[in-house]
């Protein structure tokens, strides 16, 4: 198990170097002059050149790359060209908000999604199944900014129950979480339903029923546990992408998460922060994938890592 873990972590290193190189190139392929973008339209050519020099954008590309990689190996992501603060500090300042949103919306999505999926599978073909499937399609196809605005109009403007935007009020997390959960919930519900349907048709489920096991135990112990593997994969992927920040939701609800940091940085051509966030995203995905693989073994003892 430990060797497996060590191998996976080691394998992540070349992946991250690859990601770092690709993103380094990609941001520099973006059209637009970073120094002019930072300085603004009114800046004099001298001011623009001074800023270009301060950030080393006047250096040849390979020099910038070597500097970036050698800093990276020392755990230094550089300085944000937008704010002047270290990139790690910028990201760490935003990460708790994104993590809060990701965890809460994942909990909602898993709780509601799995429950709905199981109910739909056991009542296959019923009106309830149809209703849940309909809800899932609704959740999948709803643009989040529309759903977000509708929730704001209802709960903030009409009912005055919840804040419309921002993270200052502790209740502010509710609307963005629900908005964000809608999509994942629908995905999880569909996945849970189809996985459950497959498992419910298996011989061992029939055997369990035949030997007189209680319905509840058949569903939860025999069927659900076996149906969970594909569901966990979906949850893992969703959680990974949520950690990267949900740009639209964060914008509609003015949530100070990583997604908005990334967008702001792209629009102000803040190369170091864009590089940092993308790297962080890669680390998050690698970590979540590893976690998912480890959870597999816990859920299904037949899986062994050697």
């Amino acid at each position, binding site marked *: 198990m430990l060797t497996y873990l060590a191998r996976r972590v080691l394998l992540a290193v070349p992946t991250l170097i690859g990601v770092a190189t690709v993103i380094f190139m990609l941001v520099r392929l*973006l*059209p*637009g*002059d*970073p120094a*002019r*973008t*930072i*300085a*603004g*339209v*009114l*800046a*004099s*050519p*001298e*001011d623009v050149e*001074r*800023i270009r020099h*301060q950030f080393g954008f006047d250096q040849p590309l390979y020099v910038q790359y070597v500097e970036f990689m050698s800093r990276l190996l020392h755990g230094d992501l550089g300085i944000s060209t*937008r*704010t*002047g*603060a270290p990139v790690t500090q*910028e990201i760490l*300042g*935003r990460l708790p*908000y994104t993590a809060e949103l990701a965890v809460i919306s994942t909990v909602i999505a898993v709780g509601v999604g799995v429950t709905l999926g199981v109910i739909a599978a056991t009542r296959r073909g019923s009106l309830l199944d149809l209703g849940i499937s309909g809800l899932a399609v609704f959740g999948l196809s709803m643009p989040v900014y529309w759903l977000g*605005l509708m929730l*704001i*109009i209802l709960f*903030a*403007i009409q009912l*005055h*129950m*919840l*804040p*419309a*935007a*921002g*993270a*200052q*009020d502790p*209740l502010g997390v509710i609307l963005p979480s629900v908005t964000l959960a809608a999509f994942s919930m629908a995905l999880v519900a569909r996945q849970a339903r189809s996985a459950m349907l497959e498992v419910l048709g298996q011989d061992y489920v029939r055997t369990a029923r035949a030997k007189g096991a209680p319905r509840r135990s058949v569903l939860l112990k025999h069927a659900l546990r076996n149906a969970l593997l594909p569901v966990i994969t979906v949850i893992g992927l969703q959680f990974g992408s949520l950690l990267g920040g949900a740009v639209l939701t964060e*914008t*509609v*609800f*003015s*949530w*100070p*998460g990583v997604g*908005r*940091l990334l967008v*702001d940085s792209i*629009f*102000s*051509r803040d190369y170091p922060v864009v590089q940092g966030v993308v790297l962080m995203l890669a680390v998050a995905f690698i970590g979540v994938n590893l976690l998912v693989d480890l959870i597999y073994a816990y859920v299904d003892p037949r899986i062994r890592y050697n």
Partner: protein
Amino acid sequence: MNGRNLALVVAGLLLAVACGGNNSTGTSTGGGKHGGTLNVAIGIDPDTLDPAAQTTTTASQIVDMMVERLYTMDSSGNTVPQLASGDPQVSSDGLTYTIPLRTGVKFSDGTAFNAAAAKQSIDRLLDPNTFKTQPGVLSVIASTSAQDDSHLVVKLKSPFAPFVAALTQTNAAILSPVSLTQQGNTAQKVVVPVGTGTYVFKERVAGDHITLSANTNYWGTKPNYDTQVIKIVPDDPSREALIRSGGADVIISPPLSDLPALSKDSTVKVLAAKADRTIFISIDTVDQNVALLQKPEVRQALNYAVDKKTIIQNVMFGQAVELDAPMSKTLFGYCSVGTYNYDVNKAKSMLQAAGASGMTVKLGSPTGRYPQDIKVAQAVAGYLRDAGLNVQGPMTSDWPTYLGSVNVPPAQAKYDMHLLGWAPAYLDASQQFEQFRSDRIPPKGLETSYYSNQQVTDLVVKAGSETDQNQRKTDYCSASKIVWNDAPWIFLYNQSFPIVYSSKVTGVGSFPNEKFDTRYASPA
């Protein structure tokens, strides 16, 4: 938890939310009623609060609440003393300015404000090691010295008539010298600006809010709200939702299309503040692909072809004023020079006479940089088609890409015409003429129409160093007339700067350079 308990908890939470929003107390002090917290929502997250590195008026306005300049502008745009105690004494060669300073003023950290402090901040702005410093026109300063505690002497490299007006910019703000080593600040990089302003920095959560508290030792009229929270709400509809839900007391730049509805809403007030930004279609006046655009009469015809009034009414929802000069009315040096009244038949016949009927032009526009920008460009394209032109576009891209594609030397021009906005940092015509001086053609500046008329450049250079203010006005007026006639732009409009505030609040003001002013807001 049973159903009843849950209901109680929810009710309790709701009550807490309801009470949380209402924290004005309503006792009266000097400038107006005293209040608790004022919530203001703006659209951008300030890059930095360091005065020397300011690039946008919205962020500058937040900084202005904490740090002050030697001179400022009043709500009509006139230059008035702030930390200076009066007008400067100017030497006869126009090179030496002796600025008298207020005495007895203290920075919010208790340090005394004096000429040495002023010198240090201005030197810091000019120091190339200061992070992202942007002295701009103030790089005309050769040296500064403190004559005594209350007189700052500034020597210029060359005479620069709008020097005092240029000192009203936020980058010329005066910081407490002691603060440059505290709260994470260094001389190179200021995170927490400490000045003499009405408010003091309290807290910042990047991307979410900035909290300021009243400077209880402020030297002038004390502010009314104890605290102002500046919320960062990037999405226009979300800002509108915030004020409609009571989560904000003041918002800037709501969606223009909702202004008619907001104007009818009795719970809020709409202030269409005067501003200095002109929006125009810059024409490539040295166009090699469409050489006809080099002819002034063709460019004049394009001006007649576009119905500015209808665009202002239907696309800008009335939040703009048609241009009658190549600059906004709020600038020093403005004079009304004419109109290109919409007349499609006149445009057609002028185009025909010039052999330009049916010419093909490429039009570019940014999306989301200015209110309704791409929609205005679409309307312009429609009018030009009505006049018989074959318009390709408007082609569009995000702002940095767009700026990169128009800020190029003439040979690399991508569009035949492009929509752009220009907002002088201080209200002097010299700033607007950056758009018409032939020595500002990229890469030397952002004169992206490549317009070149030696008479205009001469007049502007002359006015820039003239000491006689009336003569300066006359020169700018003459230059404006030539520009208007040469028509390097399709002159569109001067957009206003809409601010929406709760009817429970009063005293919300503005400056005519797209800055809002909540320093002296108070409960109504």
